[in-house]
């Protein structure tokens, strides 16, 4: 099997699985279906609300999984212990562009239970390592959701305005942020801080210097700095702080991150802490994890196969098949791809045309 035979996304899956196992993450295998009820209760957590449903033989309404995290949390039983798992599963979601369902392969990991600073660092390190397996030009954008939420909580901002503010932060839309803060009587000081933080972007040392000026002595800034500074050297090279990386405040908290690869539009990796989702699911544990969308990686196949096969081998139907087999095996021995046919194909592009004359294969 040549490297070309294994597609980029398949190579990445192999590498990621062994990476996660190396750090003690155990494979998590699950069924393709889940009771629909689970997704109804947490539909805002899903990237797309549309779910493929069907009735099981006993009448229960089932769904093809649109998400993996909810199933993993639901099945966690031993509260307090630390569970480290990784998965490689297909999920079924509506694709934004085509408005139709798509099967998407995801690889990801979850660290659930007594999550401490080490766990957060480990997950961030693994996210960075995963990105380096995908491309040598990648960036992990990290933010701390609590810093922004704290600011919003300091003012009496209604829930729908808060989610509009978070949406504008995620778009880096400072001009609209200024307008919405004004409309909703957010104090000038808080509005100024929200705008300044929404535009903050760059390497950690630069951003933390700015954060120290904006929020001196802030506890969340300190814990964020501690985690970022504790990352390994390779991860440090990839990490950039960007507060536009935010999620739904009903589910997420703390660290949030997205991975970007040069040449692929949109984030290929997405993750963060979701203690709030755990609480909503009546679990007292903390949790952090990330997922990699493998469907996006097919665009990374730098080499486009110029030829379908290397050799087309023409043979007569009444030839000695044993001898033909021997000739073909000789050619395929060093990895050359051969297609044996009785006539020259129209749609196949080949490098070399050979003909089996009954005794041996000769180039035509």
């Amino acid at each position, binding site marked *: 099997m040549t490297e070309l035979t294994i597609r980029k996304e398949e190579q990445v899956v192999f590498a990621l699985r062994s990476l996660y196992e190396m750090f003690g993450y155990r494979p998590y295998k699950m069924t393709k279906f889940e009771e629909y009820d689970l997704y109804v209760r947490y539909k805002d957590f899903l990237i797309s609300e549309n779910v493929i449903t069907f009735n099981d033989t006993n009448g229960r309404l089932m769904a093809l999984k649109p998400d993996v995290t909810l199933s993993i949390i639901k099945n966690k039983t031993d509260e307090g212990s630390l569970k480290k798992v990784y998965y490689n599963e297909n999920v079924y979601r509506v694709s*934004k562009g085509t408005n139709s369902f798509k099967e998407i392969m995801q690889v990801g990991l979850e660290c659930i239970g007594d999550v401490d600073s080490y766990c957060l660092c480990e997950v961030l390190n693994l996210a960075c390592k995963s990105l380096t397996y995908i491309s040598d*030009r990648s*960036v992990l*954008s990290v933010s701390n959701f609590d810093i922004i939420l704290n600011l919003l909580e300091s003012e009496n901002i209604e829930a729908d305005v808060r989610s509009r503010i978070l949406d504008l932060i995620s*778009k*880096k*839309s400072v*001009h*609209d942020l200024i307008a919405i803060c004004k409309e909703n009587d957010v104090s000038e000081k808080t509005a100024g801080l929200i705008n300044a933080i929404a535009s903050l*972007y760059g390497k950690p040392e630069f951003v933390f210097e700015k954060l120290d000026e904006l929020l001196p002595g802030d506890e969340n800034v300190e814990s964020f700095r501690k985690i970022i500074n504790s990352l390994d050297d390779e991860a440090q090279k990839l990490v*950039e702080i960007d507060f*536009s990386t935010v999620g739904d405040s009903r589910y997420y908290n703390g660290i949030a991150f997205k991975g*970007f*690869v*040069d*040449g*692929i*539009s*949109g*984030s290929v990796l997405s993750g963060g802490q979701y203690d709030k989702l755990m609480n909503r699911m009546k679990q007292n544990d903390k949790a952090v994890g990330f997922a990699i969308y493998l469907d996006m990686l097919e665009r990374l196949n730098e080499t486009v196969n110029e030829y379908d096969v290397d050799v087309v081998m023409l043979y007569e139907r009444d030839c000695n098949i044993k001898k033909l087999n021997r000739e073909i095996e000789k050619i395929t021995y060093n990895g050359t791809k051969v297609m044996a046919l009785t006539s020259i194909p129209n749609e196949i592009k080949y490098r070399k045309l050979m003909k089996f004359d009954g005794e041996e294969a000769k180039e035509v």
Partner: protein
Amino acid sequence: MKQMLNVALPKGRLGEKVYAMFEKAGFECPSIKENNRKLIFENEEKGVRYFWVKPSDVAIYVERGAADIGVAGKDILLEYEPDVYELLDLDIGKCRMAVAAPKDFRDDSQRTLKVATKFSNIAQNYYNSCGRDIDMIHLNGSIEIAPILGLSDVIVDIVETGTTLKENNLEVKETIVPISARLIANKTSFRFKSELIEKIKNELASQTGEIK
């Protein structure tokens, strides 16, 4: 080879104004002014490549990464909700998204409101926020004639000066949102070409009077 920044400009008057701003910012590309049918122009020295696309397509080019940055109206951004950064309000192409109806129209809240529009998503979001049940009629142009012919009760459309409305005996009943042109950026490009994008953003911001 020098890395080029792909810039999608909206064809038409707005696009010409936008290009003038880029030119003033020091990212000129003289060949763009030649009278021909070419759609792509580049200035290798400055590292920029401009291309003209249909205004409603700019956001798609940027979202999908074919363009690193572009200029799109807020109406397009609200309608298609592309996953892009909205870096700057360029303060040009100003107008508003509004509900308009015949002058003597009285909204009977007992009945489903028939709304004709090119901007179905914006209209739906607006009436959802009002809790109003509507019958959406998606049209692709000449929206103003819909209430005249009884196709709809009201229209949701862009209003610039209001002349077209007035000539068709319509008037603005509600303003939904003010509209202006925005500098947008692809989320991946923003990370890998951030220096040049930030530079362009700051130069353009200085022209709109915003603080850098």
